[in-house]
């Protein structure tokens, strides 16, 4: 059943996603997103050495929050905003769970709006990338 504004309830959970990005996935993200900072692919880069590993692009996780919302929305509305804070580093080959929950549903300026809280969790259950998204239904 297609998602509609009417059948969304505050507290609804978005279908969660799990991903375990390895170095190859990060290289693909670098190519697609244009961020070739070596700390995301080069273990010999000084900052990677200082951290002890390369790290997952924060914006890969941000974009995964967008992907979660896009998959849930199924093109039934328009994504107006996606935001997040980077609270913790994630490392290659470690599972990241992407989750979301409907926080608010309201009408404004002729638009039917929904705000969702979205976040990534690392394998220990720590929220490394908490954020929000707003979608509009016609």
């Amino acid at each position, binding site marked *: 059943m297609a998602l509609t504004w009417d059948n969304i309830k505050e507290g609804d959970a978005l279908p969660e996603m799990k*991903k375990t*990005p390895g170095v190859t*996935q990060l290289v*693909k*993200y*670098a*190519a*697609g*997103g*244009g*961020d*070739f*900072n*070596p700390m995301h692919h080069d273990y010999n880069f*000084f*900052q990677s050495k*200082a951290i002890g590993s390369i790290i997952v*692009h*924060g*914006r*890969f996780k*941000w*974009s*995964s*929050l*967008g*992907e979660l*919302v*896009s*998959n849930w929305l199924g*093109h039934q509305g*328009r*994504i*107006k*905003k*996606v*935001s*997040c*804070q*980077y609270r913790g580093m994630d490392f290659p080959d470690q599972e990241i769970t992407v989750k979301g929950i409907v926080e608010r549903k309201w009408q404004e300026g002729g638009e039917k709006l929904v705000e969702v809280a979205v976040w990534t969790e690392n394998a220990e259950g720590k929220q490394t990338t908490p954020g929000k*998204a707003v979608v509009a239904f016609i």
Partner: protein
Amino acid sequence: MAEKIEIKDEWKAQLGVNSPPWTYEITTTSVRAFARGVGYTDPVYYDIDAARAAGHRNLPAPPCYLGTPVFIPGKSDDTFSGPVNSGMSLFQFGLANVLDGGTEVEYFDTLCAGDTLTAVNRLVGLDVRESKALGQMLILSLEMEYKNLTGKVVMIARGQTILY
């Protein structure tokens, strides 16, 4: 670890100043490359027939895809791909390490492959914060405003860059 970061007047003078505009493209190939990078399996971001069936005029820009800056050697940043003239040479702050603090994108229209955008970047905030792990950090708040060819603002991306 930085001992003590003092915000200099010459940094403050850059607050609110727009960079020269730069061109960002959204193409079928760039949308697919971004979707692959994130790991999308939704065919709407890859297959034009699927995109049209979902009501889009072409492959839609996935959320958080901010367009691909036109790359010109010497004028573009080799690491981050944006224009060197965006005004934000991170080297000027004298700190070697860069981390992303947070990001937000706000859309005022739907963006699709075939759209060409012009963007300006501006520094909107400078803060010094203390981190237990990293010591003193300089937090730059940046705002990037994208217009389409008719001059309408279609997207604003806001972010915090952490230097330490």
